[in-house]
């Protein structure tokens, strides 16, 4: 479904990604594992069109993503939860989650249905719904960012270091939410970045090791043993 071929990204003249390539089938879960600065975030940002692509091809269902404006990509069913959450503090938690669906002008009944699905995966967001997004803790904010990504990500969901900075109890609940997501929506493709592969071991076996902007497919188990 998602195909990345020879993706090269330069930031200020420095090659941050060098010929990155991988594919993601519907329903697959892929862990993009690497150290800080290896290029994990840039890979996701390139998929969202937030950094210029120097070379390479990105396609979703055979459609070249390069021809799709960045703001039209969520409409293809791509949800993105950045590492630093980036919630809109002027809105409540529920308004933040709803916003991507409102932006693409989904009908109200469809928004309701998707919202219910989000709360099914992340039941603890129900209690936070009316809170200003600026007032929730960092860990809760990660959950909200996941909910917001799920609202529009019906085909592909990109999670950037979801466990980064989470207290152990919250990390546990976040992992449970991801397993619930896998059960409820087995058709969504998930691309998750992480510097600690052990955190994703329960979610998938497929890993992609990224080092200095170059990737190599590895089993998650092997990455953990090497580390």
């Amino acid at each position, binding site marked *: 479904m998602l195909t990345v071929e020879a993706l090269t990204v330069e930031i200020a003249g420095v090659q941050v990604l060098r010929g990155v390539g991988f594919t993601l089938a519907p329903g697959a879960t892929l862990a993009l594992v690497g150290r800080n600065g290896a290029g994990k975030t840039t890979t996701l940002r390139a998929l969202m069109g937030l950094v210029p692509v120097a070379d390479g091809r990105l396609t979703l269902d055979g459609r070249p993503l390069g021809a799709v404006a960045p*703001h039209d990509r*969520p409409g293809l069913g791509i949800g993105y939860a950045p590492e630093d959450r980036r919630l809109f503090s002027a809105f409540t938690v529920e308004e933040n989650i709803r916003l991507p669906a409102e932006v693409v002008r989904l009908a109200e009944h469809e928004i309701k249905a998707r919202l219910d699905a989000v709360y099914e995966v992340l039941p603890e967001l129900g209690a936070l719904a009316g809170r200003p997004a600026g007032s929730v803790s960092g860990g809760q904010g990660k959950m909200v960012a996941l909910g917001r990504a799920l609202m529009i990500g019906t085909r592909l969901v990109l999670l950037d270091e979801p466990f980064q900075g989470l207290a152990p109890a919250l990390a546990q609940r976040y992992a449970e939410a991801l397993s619930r997501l896998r059960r409820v929506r087995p058709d969504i493709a998930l691309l998750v970045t992480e510097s600690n592969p052990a955190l994703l071991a329960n979610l998938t076996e497929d890993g992609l090791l990224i080092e200095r902007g170059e990737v190599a497919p590895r089993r998650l188990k092997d990455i953990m043993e090497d580390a």
Partner: protein
Amino acid sequence: MTWQLAFLATLDGLAYAALVFMVAVGLTLIFGVLRILNVAHGSFYAIGAYLAASLGIAIAAGGLSPWLTFPALILAAVLVGTILGTLIERALLRYVYLKEDVLQLLVTFAVFMILEDVQRLVWGVNPYFEAVPLRLLGNISLGGIFYTNYQILVLPAVALLILVGLRLFLRTTLAGKLITAVTEDREMATAIGVDTGRVYLITFVIGATLAALGGALASPTTSLVPGMGADMIVLSFAVVATAGLGQVEGAALAALLIGLGRSFAVYLMPELEVLVPYLVMALVLLVRPEGLFGVAQRRRI
């Protein structure tokens, strides 16, 4: 200073603050979304005023009902905001969004200079005075002071309506929510599907219309002369800086502070009149460098 003079100064200050607020809130809205300090904003004010006066004169010449001058004020603002605003945003500003601040300032400054001359070409340099709306509404006597209904009722009412309306618009409509989202985080807004280019255009047109409305509503109360746009833009900068960039409610309070400060100075120490807005600004910024309501900017590296 007698209480009567103080009361008069308060009324003057309120009427003036209402006009300044309309211009300043447009400026601050545009800055919040586009991150461009629009020097040409004063031109929207001036051209809005001139066009409103011209429409008023045309209405009188055509023998139409003088009450039509009221919708003409709004028409003038909408025409200037949509036509001139769209033209400037599409033809110039959208090419400099990612460029350095200095270049953006120079571009809007150039637009301002050009529009100043356009204004002289179209309306000449002789003062215009067209006060039909002011006269139509008559005067009111407040504790022995006569004051025009237009300045004491219409101007503050419109300013209040804009404040509340803008708040509701930004909070409850989809277009308003998108503007709010882009103001806070342009890139994340893109990542959830917001077409920032369109939001920029809509915001610029709204801001330009508000400035033109300030000018149109000011036109019955003053002589229109070349340079009025420059005066207003400098004053609006003071208001916006005092309030904190991008702050809607803050702009209202700062406009009130500066409007009242200025009108009291007129009665107490006239020689300080032009200085007072900047004194207020300097005092506020000494205590709160980010402005009354501003939040310290996070630096993204």
